[in-house]
């Protein structure tokens, strides 16, 4: 056993010290009826060399963005470039094999990095406080909604535009399913939320509105007006943002005007230096106004001084948390995504303001270039007229999305996200994403491949997740 130490001699000495004859005797603590009388039905052990080979074989059955394919997939997970320094730092054993900093004296590395993370997030969002991270963007959005419901003095309505990521909406719906809450969806017929409908549904029973900016379709919402509508009703504005977009676009806290914007901002922080890993683990970012801090879920690090007067950092405001408050806690979050918060901290340190801006700029310019090249052809059009940031919804006039995906794959291209699985009306649409990594040559080739119209013979085996509505259990 490569990871255990005890030799036969050790075991004998230890058993003697304990005063038992065998390990089996120790296991008699488990009532006999419940002791498994057979060996688990699992494959036999592999040594490291065999495991390595096996994992490479499994990996070889996949095609990824860094292993053979050019990716145009977005929809909440993005193929942004990750500088090598991020891996170098995050792979230091002192970071990745440590745990929650309960003993501040031997965890200042984690605690200071978390404090820096919180600071970066407040600067990024324009809000007052950030926690140390949550699971992912969707659950962070759900936690934000829970915060709004809890602080809403009995308000029960949660308003979700249809332009919010469908998986975020599904997650929020699940989170509030057992509570006294009502989810109201507002249509987004032109790729952005219908502000008139929003006005009509946001009322004095509304706890919050969730607005994604840029939204799931890549379109830019009128966040200022949506915020005004929300605040006018006394509801909280919850912003779901793309952190890369903040290289050019207004911070959530600054919607309407500086400090007048969103009350809570959440996002999927994967773009900030976390690899795609087939969807997780990712980084749930959540920041809010000072006034909401005691409702905030998750760990929070604060600055203080030690007994010698030295500046230092500790986990703080733990009375919100489940290990003290138990069923009265603000949430049940215990493990978080500290390692990815660290990655985001390193990533943002490396990018700095100029790097963030340039990254955003490249995403904007390149995605618009591709969109224009595609709509120059007869086959495609943009589904929506609204301005977009790094993603856009492409409509195939021939309505052969499966063929496009298959044809892309045959050419080592991950062509985009078919939207029919989320909305039947978008069955002829693809969400196409362009990050700073794509070159003009790749973009031109994408146009060429997609328009060569060569329906791939074996098309159609793509991931078909049927239009999925959460079971109505509320």
């Amino acid at each position, binding site marked *: 056993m490569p990871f255990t130490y005890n030799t036969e001699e050790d075991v004998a000495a230890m058993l003697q010290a304990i005063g038992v004859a065998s390990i089996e005797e120790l296991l008699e603590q488990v009532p006999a009826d419940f002791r498994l009388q057979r060996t688990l039905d699992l494959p036999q052990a592999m040594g490291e060399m065999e495991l390595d080979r096996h994992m490479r074989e499994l990996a070889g059955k996949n095609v*990824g963005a860094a292993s053979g394919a050019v990716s145009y997939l977005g929809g909440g997970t993005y193929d942004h470039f990750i500088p090598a320094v991020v891996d170098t730092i995050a792979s230091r054993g002192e970071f*990745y094999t440590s745990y929650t900093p309960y003993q501040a004296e031997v965890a200042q590395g984690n605690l200071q990095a978390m404090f820096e993370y919180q600071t970066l997030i407040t600067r990024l969002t324009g809000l007052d406080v950030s926690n140390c991270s949550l699971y992912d963007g969707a*659950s962070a959005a759900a936690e934000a909604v829970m915060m709004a419901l809890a602080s809403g003095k009995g308000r029960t309505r949660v308003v979700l535009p249809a332009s919010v990521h469908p998986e975020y909406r599904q997650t929020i719906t699940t989170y509030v399913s057992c509570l006294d809450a009502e989810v109201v969806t507002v249509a987004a017929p032109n790729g952005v939320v219908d502000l008139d409908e929003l006005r009509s549904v946001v009322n004095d029973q509304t706890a919050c509105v969730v607005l994604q900016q840029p939204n799931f379709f890549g379109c830019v919402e009128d966040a200022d007006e949506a915020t005004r509508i929300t605040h006018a009703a006394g509801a909280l504005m919850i912003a779901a943002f793309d952190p890369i977009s903040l290289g050019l676009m207004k911070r959530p806290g600054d919607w309407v005007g500086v400090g007048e914007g969103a009350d809570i901002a959440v996002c999927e922080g994967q773009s900030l230096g976390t690899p795609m*890993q087939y969807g997780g*683990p990712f980084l749930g970012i959540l920041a809010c106004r000072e006034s909401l801090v005691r409702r905030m879920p998750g760990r929070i690090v604060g600055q203080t001084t030690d007994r010698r007067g030295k500046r230092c950092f500790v986990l703080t405001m733990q009375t919100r948390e489940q290990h003290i408050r138990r069923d009265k806690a603000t949430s049940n979050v215990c493990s*978080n995504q500290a390692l990815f918060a660290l990655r985001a901290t390193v990533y943002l340190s490396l990018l700095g303001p100029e790097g963030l801006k340039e990254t955003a700029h490249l995403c904007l310019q390149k995605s618009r270039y591709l969109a224009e090249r595609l709509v120059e052809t007869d086959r495609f059009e943009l589904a929506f007229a609204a301005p977009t940031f790094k993603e856009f919804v492409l409509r195939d006039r021939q309505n052969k999305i499966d063929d496009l995906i298959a044809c892309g794959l045959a050419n080592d291209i991950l062509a985009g996200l078919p939207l029919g699985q989320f909305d039947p009306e978008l069955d002829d649409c693809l969400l196409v994403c362009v990050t700073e990594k794509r070159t003009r040559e790749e973009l031109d080739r994408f146009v060429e491949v997609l328009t060569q119209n060569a329906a791939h013979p074996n098309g159609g085996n793509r991931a078909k997740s049927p239009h999925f509505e959460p079971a109505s259990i509320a």
Partner: protein
Amino acid sequence: NDSQLLFDISKPGRRATRLPACDVPVKPVAELLPAASLAASTPELPELAEPQVVRHFTNLSTLNMSVDTHFYPLGSCTMKHNPKRNERAASLPGIVDLHPYQPEESIQGMLQLLYKVQEYLCEISGLPACSLQPAAGAHGELTALWVAHAYFKDNGQAHRTKVLVPDNAHGTNPASAAMAGFDTVTVKTLITGAVDMEDFRKKLDDNIAVFMITNPNTVGVFEPQIGEIAAEVHARGGLMYLDGANMNAILGISRPGDFGADMQHYNPHKTFSGPHGGGGPGAGPICVAEKLRPYLPAPVVAKRSASEGAEYYLDYSSTKSIGRVRSFFGNVGVLVRAYCYIRSHGPDGLRRVSEQAVLNANYLLSRVKHFLPVPQGERCMHEFVASAKKLKTERGVTAMDIAKRLLDFGYHAPTIYFPQTVPEALMCEPTETESKETLDAFAETLFRITEESPELLHEAPHTTAISRPDEVTAARQPTLCHCG
């Protein structure tokens, strides 16, 4: 200077990153985005050079204790060795670079792996259905309770609102129950950590929804009455939930499904050695009984014959599903490591993991009990809880003092003041990946500390970068970010 913040060492004009020139025709941003959406300026991120970033974070890292550097007997957290082979595997191209929305035929290797993880977790738990979606143990609890909620509702038993939780349970149990809309009722436990059957029976009634039990429990004792408890809960129509935080004690030895659990979560970052990452990520896959399968979050990975298309696929077909509990498939990176761990050990190796974890814990208990009483008795599974109550009474030395002083000797502290049922608790979990030599040295150090002067101990640690931060001020006048 270690104590400087990123923001202290920033200087306008420094850069660590240079993006390429734009290779497509550039249009004015104002033509592409609405004026109202544009920021007046870029967020005030620090401006640094690459060497500075590297040195800052490298030096910060050295202020942490970690499993790679120190013995870390943090009870309940299972700080075992994180195999480096798993890190290598999880970062392979073709694993680390997959997008969650890729076509199924482009990710057959990944889907196969996830399908196998579902199978393995079911076999280990003795429960037939699995969801890999939850992102952490507590998230798994919550997901399972939503499943229970949906199950009762679907079966016309919406009146079941009561969740029983022993008083020594992890705080996440009652917190999760509350989030899922249940009422929590606390059940007393005995000094051995076992459920007080009298109190349990007093609180058990026909409104029981779920009994959430941690087994082995948080003092490291296998609940001796688990059979009776499960039988009585089931007799009342309730469900048994197994908090799987301590699964590392019973791999291949006992299966929750066999001792009455209807649902359980795993903490793969504990049981299957995913690195803890300074607080996360974890993962919280759950296994459930057949009758609960329809309510699991979607998708799950399913297998079909080759003629129907790609062999492994994402199955969204259950119409009774509770829906999503997060975006995308799950914390796949953690599950990949769990897969590697299970494949590295095989059935005999997994059983040996638990045997050695139990052996190490009992050995440490046998060395410690003479000077730090262990109220639960002479035996434990993978961890035990010692009490410094006597030391406190007699000499004013607290569990906190002992914990802090251990840091001076190069040991991470055990978990302290948990469970709250044991006064001045020190919860020690050595794990199976430590040596007898380490346990001996640790026990000797612990003994030495109990002999030291209270004055010395109250001011410990003495050798660390900082000592005894002022937590009260931190909480009362919170400074949660750097201004300036």
